[in-house]
């Protein structure tokens, strides 16, 4: 997606991750800003289903042609699903970071952590 976009139904982590929270499960990915900084994504190395992730800690790696970056967990919990389509089409992270480019789904161990994340306006303000 060519134009910057920060959907208002998502929650944002300062390390440029987003979470779409539905009950006690959150879908997570990286923001438009993150994919733009990274450049063309050529490889996503997903965690294993069942792995535990901890808020503010790295849980996966995403690589562009030039560099590798850690992906930081916006929330704590257990990985219940990974986006397998990214293994053959990692460019979805650039093309559709909030849709086809989602990375993992996490069953939250502490749903109250959601309150610590930013809304779209606050996140966008943090980029300026």
């Amino acid at each position, binding site marked *: 997606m060519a134009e910057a976009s920060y959907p208002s139904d998502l929650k944002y982590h300062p390390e440029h991750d987003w979470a779409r929270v539905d009950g006690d499960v959150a879908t997570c990915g990286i923001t438009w800003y993150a994919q733009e900084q990274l450049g*063309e994504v050529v*490889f996503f*190395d997903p965690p294993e289903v069942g792995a535990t992730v901890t808020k503010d800690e790295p849980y996966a*790696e995403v690589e*562009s*042609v*030039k560099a*590798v970056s850690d992906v930081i967990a916006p929330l704590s919990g257990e990985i219940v699903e990974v986006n397998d389509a990214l293994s053959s089409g990692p460019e979805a992270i650039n093309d559709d970071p909030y849709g086809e480019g989602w990375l993992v789904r996490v069953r939250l161990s502490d749903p109250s952590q959601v309150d610590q994340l930013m809304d779209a306006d606050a996140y966008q303000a943090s980029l300026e």
Partner: protein
Amino acid sequence: MAAGTDTLKRTPLYDRHVAAGARLVPFAGWEMPVQYAGIREEHVAVRRAAGIFDVSHMGQIETAGPGAEALLQRLLSNDVSRLREGGAQYSVLCREDGGVLDDLFSYRLGPDRFLTVTNAANHARDLAWFEEHASGHDAAVRDRIADHAMLAVQGPQARALVGALTDGELPARFHTAVLTVAGAPDVLVCGTGYTGEDGVELLVAPAHAASVWDAVCAAGARPAGLGARDTLRLEACYHLYGNDLSEDRDPISAGLGWCCKEDTGFIGAEAISRVRSAGPAEKLAPFVVTGQGIARQGNPVAGGGVVTSGTFSPCLGQGIGMAYLPAERAAPGTPIEIDVRGRARTAEVRSRPLYSKES
């Protein structure tokens, strides 16, 4: 680089890069475009059509005078006496112990006049080295970096595209010619490049750089950044100083024995000759990652060795690189295992180049 952005040098094409939406990064003291639209697109444009690179950060040293050939024969690893007027030659610059100070292209512009192109990060050191060893030779060493912008036009369509902008015939591969290009007089056109594609490099007066850039772009060359330059050169298995070459590595281990002619008596020849006859303990070898993952510079290889360049190959669609490996495990076809940030990634040694048109 420790230098802040306020002290970075800019090439005469800086405004063009900004206007084209380049991402500019510090590189060897210069503010250089790493990419415009994207590394992969630029890379593919060079492989399929033509790209233009601003490589004005590269330096030039002129060596002139009756003793110029003798001085360069002492400094450069190749046989400079075989470099003819209008020709180009690749060589390495070595210390007495064979450690590599730089890798360079030299052009013979006249019977007693040479221009040697340096890597940006090494230019000052190379220049000091040339000057230090010039005493006793009837030759003048001059820094020419301020007199040139340098544009590389590369790709299967590069020659046709530049040829249409010139008044004369383009030089053959590894040759040079002085031509008017897009109205700019006295452009040194060199049939060289570092992408694995055919093409030319243009050494042009800084005042004319922007008009030549504009004309070559208007003719259809795609601006390409240092990011694509790196993926292109690595697919072609060309060395990058600071990654694959350093003062701690000799040219034989680096696979550059072909450009070392020890009988010319250049500085480092004795040490290099010893490595050549004994056989190097480690050899630089190209590899592809056969499974998942992308190896990067500094990743260790199981059983010994280290990756010195690693990236994602846009043409092959997988991780590629070069690594120094124990000589007995450096033959094409040898499986290796690379430790990529704690994960074992499988790879295989290949022959060079990793990518060619026929593959």
